[in-house]
């Protein structure tokens, strides 16, 4: 299982990504978040502290998902990226598009 979904008391839905977010499983994450949007959820945190790799398709999926969340009046935050993965966001300038926290706890504070 690549994605573990849980809900905070504050209403934030947390998706933990275990292993990789890549061309082979990105649609699964899209479907999960679209399902939560349809169910009425609007605050999402993606926790990458257990993620070894994100490929360009995974990055693209995050851009698409974030746009859908914003269009529905919601917000999506990212957390727990290791140095290598953070460098991918910086190279592609996606770090300017996302709210990225060092840890899930930091991202959840004030969310």
């Amino acid at each position: 299982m690549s994605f573990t979904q849980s809900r905070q008391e504050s209403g934030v839905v947390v998706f933990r990504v275990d292993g990789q977010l890549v061309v082979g499983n990105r649609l699964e994450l899209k479907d999960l978040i679209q399902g939560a949007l349809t169910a009425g959820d609007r605050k999402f945190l993606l926790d990458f502290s257990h993620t070894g790799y994100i490929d360009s398709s995974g990055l693209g999926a995050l851009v698409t998902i974030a746009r859908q969340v914003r269009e529905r009046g919601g917000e999506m935050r990212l957390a727990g990226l290791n140095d290598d993965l953070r460098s991918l966001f910086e190279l592609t300038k996606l770090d300017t598009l996302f709210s990225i926290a060092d840890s899930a706890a930091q991202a959840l504070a004030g969310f």
Partner: protein
Amino acid sequence: MTSPLRFCVRRSAAGAGTAVTIVTLSIPSDIACIEEAVALVIRHCLAGDESRERLRFRLQVALSEALANAIVRGNREDRTKQVNVRAELAPEQIRLHVTDEGAGFDPRRVPEPLGPDRILGGDGRGLFLIRRLVDAVEFNDQGNSICMILLRR
């Protein structure tokens, strides 16, 4: 389950008597094969050099992106077509060739994904990341074979 990957390793003598290890791998056009293929090639690239975490990451990006491009854009996920990987492992550098059976493309016409009209796109970042993280990139004339050079430094 038997792996669908076909794999071969041999040593050859390059100029000046320097031994070069050649790793070849043939992969069906199935994105489910990418992770195993990448791990297999990286293991041979780093043999005896496993502590090189940044090199490992650069190899992962180069191979993952080149294989995804070859399978999805080159071979259009046609399972009857193969993607071939050839890794030439020398003491100073690694040369990775990834070749598909597609018609090829003109890499000069791939736009950078950083402009305001591109950054919100859902794709088009693979070749850009390869170019940023390896030391040199070459294509054959047809545009269906990429060669990525990574210095071990």
